[in-house]
């Protein structure tokens, strides 16, 4: 059997990107949360914020570290596996990715050192500043990487000549037609991820009765945030869909499982797309609703997949099902946010164990939603790499053999599987140790006796000791300033 370097490179890139994506999507949301906690701690001098911040910073450090190392791989993969694409698109992607490094990565990396190790070395204001810089760095990074990806989806401001893309307008290329929708969708997804993970972990601590005061605060904050972000994400997603219909109609046709161009298109809740026969089996749908959603008109016409030959259609089943999983999870998130509000009004928010259990389970939902969302947008543009201009087949490295691509694919899977397993293990350990393992005061950590993790009365004792020790310390630091 001949090994195909194109297929193997696609699998490899999809694997690396999917693995990488789950870390930044979490760390972007978490970085802003940590900056917020640091800000609250700085302003109110209430040590509970710093305790929370110190704890979540530990989680952040692990997640960020794994995001960085897996991200470095991607920046080299353009060259190793997609050198034709790299060469052709360098005039745009080179500067954009370089700007990401210059304006985001250096900022994150430099101030992360101070955020993690500098609490006792810099004044509180400088520490807060570092937390804010890290958070801003993650958002700037999102800006550039989404611009690069959006340009590949909806290329603008460029012309293709002499085997390379040339920029006619930087403004049009960077702020290309789908950019703002993708950027908002991604930033909201990151905040959703951060909020649901923090909410889920806090709920778990509350179920265990650990550090009740701090975790109630964290949970409450997240639920207020979710109440706004989750519905906003649905609205942004709708606008994004309309934009995709305009620029990438075949992607939308695949998302809807829609084969023939027609009006009064039903919204399919369930179907088994059959690309070979260009039809669906077992359709269950709501009449005319897809037309209404996409064109805001019951009689709206939507292009079908068979407008283009089969070889130019995206893999329909992947796009169709990924889209349904993403939207379903999004609906579930809105439901959880609203339920939270209802329980809060009834004063049962921290007592309803079923709800806290549900939140615990929901902490994986945003990751699944983000991954399936990326599957929709990335496989949905196949066979194009730069939509309408350059195909995946034209982009692959000419000297690459199937054997080489297979070797590194297996290599990356082994490397990532081992560090992912270890990373999850240590993350779980950080969560099990919990807030009391740190308390925001690292310098005397070594002097403390080891505590049994589940002995609640010990923690109460500890909490009071913490609260009495802390104001003195902050006052002292305030005096030094």
């Amino acid at each position, binding site marked *: 059997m001949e090994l195909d370097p194109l297929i193997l490179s696609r699998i490899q890139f999809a694997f690396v990107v999917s693995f990488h994506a789950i870390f930044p999507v979490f760390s972007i949301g978490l970085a802003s949360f940590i900056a917020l906690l640091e800000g609250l701690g700085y302003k109110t001098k209430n040590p509970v914020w710093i305790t929370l911040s*110190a704890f979540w*910073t530990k989680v952040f*450090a*692990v997640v960020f*570290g*794994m995001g*960085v*190392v897996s991200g*470095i791989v991607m*920046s*080299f993969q*353009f*060259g*190793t596996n997609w*050198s034709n694409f*790299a*060469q052709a698109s*360098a*005039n*745009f992607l*080179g*500067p954009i*990715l*370089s700007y*990401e*490094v*210059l*304006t985001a*990565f*250096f900022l994150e*990396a*430099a*101030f*992360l*050192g*101070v955020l*993690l*190790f*500098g*609490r006792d*070395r810099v004044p509180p204001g400088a520490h807060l500043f570092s937390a804010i810089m890290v958070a801003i760095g993650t958002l700037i990074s999102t800006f550039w990487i989404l611009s690069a990806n959006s340009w590949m989806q909806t290329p603008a401001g460029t012309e293709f000549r002499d085997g390379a893309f*040339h*920029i006619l307008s*930087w403004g049009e290329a960077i702020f290309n037609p789908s950019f703002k929708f993708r950027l908002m969708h991604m930033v909201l997804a990151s905040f959703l991820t951060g909020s649901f993970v923090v909410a889920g972990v806090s709920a778990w601590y509350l179920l265990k009765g650990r550090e009740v005061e701090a975790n109630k605060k964290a949970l409450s904050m997240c639920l207020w945030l979710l109440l706004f972000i989750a519905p906003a994400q649905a609205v942004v997603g709708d606008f994004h869909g309309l934009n995709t219909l305009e620029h990438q109609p075949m992607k939308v046709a695949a998302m809807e499982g829609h084969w023939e161009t027609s009006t009064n298109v039903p919204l399919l809740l369930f179907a088994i797309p059959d690309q070979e026969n260009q039809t669906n089996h077992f359709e269950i749908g709501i009449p005319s609703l897809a037309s209404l959603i996409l064109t805001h008109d019951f009689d709206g016409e939507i292009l079908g997949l068979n407008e283009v030959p089969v070889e130019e259609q995206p893999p329909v089943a992947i796009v169709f099902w990924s889209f349904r999983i993403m939207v379903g999870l999004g609906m579930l998130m809105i439901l959880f946010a609203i339920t939270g509000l209802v329980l809060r009004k009834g004063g049962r928010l921290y007592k309803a164990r079923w709800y806290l259990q549900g939140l615990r389970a929901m902490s994986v939902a945003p990751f699944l939603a983000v991954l399936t969302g990326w599957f929709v947008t990335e496989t949905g543009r196949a066979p194009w790499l730069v939509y309408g201009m350059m195909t995946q087949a034209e982009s692959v*490295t*000419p*000297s*690459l*053999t199937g054997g*080489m691509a297979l*070797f*590194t694919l297996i*290599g*990356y899977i082994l*490397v*990532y599987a081992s*560090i992912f397993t270890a990373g999850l293990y240590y993350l779980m*350990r950080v969560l099990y140790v919990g807030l009391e393992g*740190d308390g925001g005061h*690292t310098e005397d950590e070594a002097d403390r006796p080891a505590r049994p993790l589940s002995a609640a009365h010990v923690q109460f004792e500890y909490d009071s000791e913490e609260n009495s020790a802390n104001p003195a310390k902050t006052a002292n630091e305030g005096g030094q300033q």
Partner: protein
Amino acid sequence: MEVFDLALIWAFIIGFGIIMYVLMDGFDLGIGILFPFAPAEEDRDTMMNSVAPVWDGNETWLVLGGAGLLAAFPMVYSIILPAMYIGVFLMLAGLIFRGVAFEFRFKARSSRYLWNWSFAGGSTIATFAQGAVVGAYIQGFNTVDGVYVGGALDWLTPFTVLTGLGTLAGYALLGSTWLILKTEGRLQDWAYSITTPLLITVLVVFGIISVWTPFVDPMVWDRWFSNLGIIWILPALTLLCAFQIWRSVRNRFEGMPFVATMGLFITTYLGLIVSRWPYVVPPNYTLWDAASAPEAQLFLLLGLLFVIPIILVYTAWTYWVFRGKVRAGEGYH
């Protein structure tokens, strides 16, 4: 646009980025290379803490090098990366294992030895691969019409193995002189004691490479033995730096060994550039052949000139925050 030779400016910028990377990530990779030989486990904690707050920023220069190369000289990027395909994979795998070790090692208990190996092995493999890239660059690449046409392991030759080993010794030297600067007591004594042997190793390997290089490519021979006599100042300065390292270690100076080692790297690096100038993909393509479109080079240049000074300022600030000697118990872990 004719007034400025943008490609030339970019060659200087990329050159600057690469030496920044080598000097900065060089010492923290060196810490990893020296890791297994440390006198005690407690010293390993200190070694890691000495670089933990800054290694991530150091490594960012590598990412800048990669992205900057794509932006300014896409031909270099799209020839050397496919040519070094397996080597690049090894380097990345090494950097991954090494990078996560910073976080995992302090959270591990019984499995800590695994992360010691992950840190040491990852640093060693990544360094060797980087040295091999230098060797492969001196060797040149098999290209047709701007596309790499060679095999997967063409880069792996006795010569590149030697440059890989030379880089290992060089980074280890950066690491040991960094430890002299940042530690005290037993660990510092140990760092002093290994610096001179490492220096001798570096000089021997560099010497063999220098003698060998002109035979690998006749153009290099021509460059050094033609009428450009002034370039011999570079090897002279290299030897002067080496002497300075030896002398300052003997006198137990704390800062000078590290500074002189950086000097050694800079002069060697300049010597390498002189050997190959202006070829960026030897033996066929010069920096002007490999350049991207002027509009792309200019667009990035404007931002870069503005942002790099800011980066240097806050990077310097973080080094200042973490100035002074490190001890084992420090850090947030």
